[in-house]
């Protein structure tokens, strides 16, 4: 199993600013995943983050908007850049074993 500490748990941000979300895992993992969940919607995979290489982004998501860092096997950050109200969502990080483990999510509101 894996325990993931994600922070901040929530934030209210001004449009045009950026927010960096951090995820710390209690064990070394090869891949970490970042999801977005818009209000009332399903979880959408943003990107897969491997240590030592650039993240792989899903269709509709770009590095300039969602830069990701993966400096080691236990830590990753996702930045939501130049935010607009449409970025208001819950952002979740996840790791995989035989099942997926999730952080507690970051509830972002952009005003």
């Amino acid at each position: 199993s894996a325990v993931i500490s994600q922070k901040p748990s929530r934030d209210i941000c001004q449009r045009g600013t950026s927010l960096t979300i951090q995820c710390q895992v209690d064990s070394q993992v090869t891949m970490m995943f970042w999801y977005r969940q818009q209000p009332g919607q399903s979880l959408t995979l943003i990107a897969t983050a491997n240590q030592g290489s650039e993240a792989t982004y899903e269709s509709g998501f770009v590095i300039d908007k969602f830069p990701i860092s993966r400096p080691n096997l236990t830590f990753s950050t996702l930045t939501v850049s130049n935010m607009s109200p449409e970025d208001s969502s819950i952002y979740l990080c996840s790791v995989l074993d035989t099942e997926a483990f999730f952080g507690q999510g970051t509830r972002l509101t952009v005003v």
Partner: protein
Amino acid sequence: SQQGEEDPQALSIQEGENATMNCSYKTSINNLQWYRQNSGRGLVHLILIRSNEREKHSGRLRVTLDTSKKSSSLLITASRAADTASYFCAPLPGGSYIPTFGRGTSLIVHP
């Protein structure tokens, strides 16, 4: 990867009643997992059923899988108010390891 479609979208029951949620998917799978999300927080893994299994139990949870119909169901028996949450299925095709999620079933259990 493929996304499961949960049905119904919303379910409201009284404490003590059973809750049944269904999941349909499109292609053959290796396994299917069910997750629970409390109030916009991180998802928690509930149960995994493999493609060669037809039924699995865990406490008050019972999951069935019908690969001929490409469907699964999650039954929560003797529901409690604390079962109020959203429930998601994640079918995993062969060669895929990243779970994808539908919109989920929002379950409300009234005390």
